[in-house]
């Protein structure tokens, strides 16, 4: 829980956006407004009168509705059952499902949603499930609707549609509170923007009177803003590596300006941390940018042909993906979430079985790859879901450092754990990678998310991988950690590793990649060497547009 003296004014009939970095306290504040969390101190006034929200029941009774970032739907129930749950229509004591369906259909229609009330929720698409969530809140008479990161899981089209829905609600006199960290999107739809940082609300501004870069400065704090204003590269969290990070961040921007000439869009594509980093590093840009621009010429470490695999829902997730990765280059995989990127990474690390296709990976066949085999050939892996896949959080840091290489020196001697060797190696890595606290004997779960990620990156790079597969490597990290992780990826590349980087963050892809593949519905819809990188074109391909000219 991370709120400290946060205040927020919500004006009826407006669309208020609350922005802030990950961990700034946006979701916590909203959960307080919805009665899920209880503040240690502070007051909540509604129409000028103090109100206590003991549970969501109180919030609902006062016309507050919330759409959570992770949907709160019961997958085995139907749309109607989910919507009426807790205020079920009855006839003679029994559930009146027909009436429930009618009611839900009416509500849905009133707000322009297409929903089949009798469909089971687990058969719906993510976009439809979100609509169920919204209908659920509106059905309870919500006058104030809170949406927590609603577009994180949506395709751009769905996001546009959602924006219209939100504007429509406001036009009807309702109040919408939108939580997001996508500044451009926020400015496009909100009336007013509240900025949070480290558990506090640091500013409230009218959307019309601000810019993305101004908001970004507010989000990342005084130090960065100072840097932004004066050009002094001295944000406290961002060390030298930040500068390196930043120059790459600027490179595609320049390219785009030169090519497309749509200067107006340029600042908008930056999210907060990149903006800060970019400004912090304006100096040594040209001197270093050639590294990113050159085309790698190492031997291929991965040559995949026509990969096919099924997703968790056993629907086809990869439908014929071919790609090559050479030693000494970073290959970005761009795409809207859920278009096969995750499955691709899993195939390359042996975690997901191929259904068809193949090729070679580090001198062996890609078909029949297992995690152990992948490790043995020199594949490193920084998975997306750290706590589920990368670490054993209840084990100590040193035990986690050994994970994956625990049968080799210095972590093992024969069948035995080599306690001394493991301690030495872990201690060294913690120092090198600036993990805090640098104590190898504490449980990993006692570390912050950023430090946990540093442990993972340290472990994987220490194995000197020939192919490194990273997925969303900086999600949820603070600026300093982001910069460090990026620097380490470049370092791996410089040492001759081929890097496959899956990221939903287009800025990250543009900043680091030597080449970019775009995935859409399990197929490659675009392949760009760095010199041809064009954000607009990438965006088009991410939405499924095929190339115009072959």
């Amino acid at each position, binding site marked *: 829980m991370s709120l400290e003296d946060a205040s927020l004014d919500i004006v009826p009939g407006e669309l208020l956006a609350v922005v802030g970095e990950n961990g700034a306290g946006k979701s916590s504040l909203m959960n307080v407004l919805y009665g899920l969390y209880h503040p240690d101190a502070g007051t909540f006034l509604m129409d000028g009168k103090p109100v206590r929200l003991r*549970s969501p029941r109180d919030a609902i009774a006062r016309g507050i509705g919330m759409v959570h970032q992770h949907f709160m739907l019961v997958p085995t129930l139907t749309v109607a059952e989910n919507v009426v749950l*807790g205020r079920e229509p009855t006839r003679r004591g029994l559930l009146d499902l027909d009436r429930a369906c009618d009611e839900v259909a009416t509500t849905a229609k009133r707000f322009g949603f297409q929903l089949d009330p009798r469909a089971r929720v687990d058969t719906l698409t993510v976009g439809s499930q979100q609509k169920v969530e919204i209908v659920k809140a509106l059905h309870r008479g919500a006058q104030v609707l809170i949406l927590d990161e609603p577009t994180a899981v949506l395709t751009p089209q769905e996001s546009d549609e959602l924006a219209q829905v939100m504007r429509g609600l406001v036009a009807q006199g309702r109040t919408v509170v939108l939580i997001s960290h996508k500044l451009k999107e926020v400015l496009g739809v909100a009336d007013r923007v509240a900025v949070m940082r480290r558990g506090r609300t640091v500013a409230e501004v009218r959307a019309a009177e601000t810019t993305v870069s101004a908001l970004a400065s507010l989000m990342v704090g005084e130090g960065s803003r100072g840097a932004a204003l004066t050009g002094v590269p001295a944000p406290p969290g961002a060390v030298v590596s930040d500068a390196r990070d930043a120059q790459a961040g600027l490179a595609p921007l320049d390219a785009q300006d030169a090519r497309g000439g749509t200067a107006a869009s340029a600042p908008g594509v930056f999210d907060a941390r990149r903006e800060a980093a970019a400004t912090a590093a304006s100096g040594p840009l040209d001197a270093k940018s050639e590294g990113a621009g050159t085309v790698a010429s190492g031997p291929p470490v991965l040559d995949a042909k026509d990969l096919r695999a099924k997703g968790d829902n056993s629907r086809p997730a990869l439908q014929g993906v071919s790609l090559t990765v050479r030693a000494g280059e970073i290959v970005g995989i761009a795409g809207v979430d859920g278009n096969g990127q995750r499955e691709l990474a899993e195939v390359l690390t042996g975690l997901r079985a191929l259904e068809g296709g193949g090729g070679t990976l580090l001198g062996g066949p890609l078909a029949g790859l297992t995690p152990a085999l992948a490790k043995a050939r020199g594949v490193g892996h920084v998975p997306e879901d750290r706590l589920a896949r990368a670490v054993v959080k209840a084990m100590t840091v040193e035990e986690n450092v050994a994970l994956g290489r625990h049968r080799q020196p210095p972590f093992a001697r024969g069948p035995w754990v080599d306690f001394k060797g493991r301690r030495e190696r872990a201690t060294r890595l913690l120092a090198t990678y600036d993990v805090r606290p640098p104590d190898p004997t504490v449980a990993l779960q006692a570390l912050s998310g950023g430090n946990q990620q540093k442990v993972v990156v340290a472990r994987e790079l220490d194995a000197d991988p020939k192919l490194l597969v990273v997925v969303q490597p900086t999600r949820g990290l603070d600026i300093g950690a982001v910069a460090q992780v990026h620097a380490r990826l470049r370092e791996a590349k410089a040492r001759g590793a081929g890097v496959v980087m899956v990221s939903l963050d287009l800025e990250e892809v543009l900043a680091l990649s030597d080449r970019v593949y775009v995935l859409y519905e399990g197929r490659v819809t675009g392949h760009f060497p760095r010199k041809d990188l064009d954000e607009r074109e990438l965006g088009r391909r991410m939405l499924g547009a095929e190339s115009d000219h072959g």
Partner: protein
Amino acid sequence: MLEVLHSLLFSTLDAAPALVFAALGAMLSERAGVVSVGVEGMMRTGAFCAAVAALAMPTPVAVLVGMGAGAAIAAVHGFLSIRWRSDQVVSGMALNLVAMAGGTFLLESLFGPNGTPAITQLPRWNVPGLSAVPLLGALSGHAAPTYLALTLPFLFHLLLSRTPLGLRLRAVGDKPHAVATLGLSVSALRWGAVLGGGLMAGLGGAVLSTAVLDRFEQHTPAGLGFMALAAMVFGRWTPLGAFAAALFFAFGNALRIGLASSAPWLLDLVPQGFLLALPYLLTLLVLALQGQRGHAPAALGTPYEQESR
């Protein structure tokens, strides 16, 4: 032949209620997401308390006492697993051990090793006219629990599938967080289901000592609670499925006992041990064939934890 079938049906209907009640109780608790391996201990406590109470009060009232005792054990389970989010299997097994040893201890201290003194059994009801009808006549001449056991599963089915409460119980077993965000209390729903399950298990135990037997015996319920779990799983966590499975197991048991007395030569071909093992083997087989994941409530065994306080 008809005669044999009649007596088989009759003893099935006589023996089934305890199993049916316990299976329904376990199902109720598990549908709300709370594992119910303690059902054996709840039955034992219910059986003991009902037998002791029947020494001092009318037997039907004693049955209610037995139900209350089952619910009391369930309350301990609820306290540990809902209030304190303890491991539900551990808590249930602990209660089984306590009920096992505690029952023996109290029985010996209060009555000696041979079980409680005999009590008045629940009266048996003859349905006029029905007794004469072939086969259907087997429905006549049972105590009240039998008739209750034939109706309750349908009421449970109605409760789960057609009432608001049932909808909420199903939801809380599948996705408690969704229920919480709608302003409903996850713990209240789970408490209700666990206590209801305890009442049912206690009833199952009470029936053993007031209708099937006329006393509490050293080993009651001798694994019947675990068989109830098997019936619940076999019936895919549904009231009617659990009911059918319980009837089927009870029938198998009646068949085995019937064979032992009427056709012992058959038992040389198919040993009793096999028949005893059959319900469990069948449950294992069904699980092996279909896998379990598709049918158990999704949040079964997971303590509900709000992300923060």
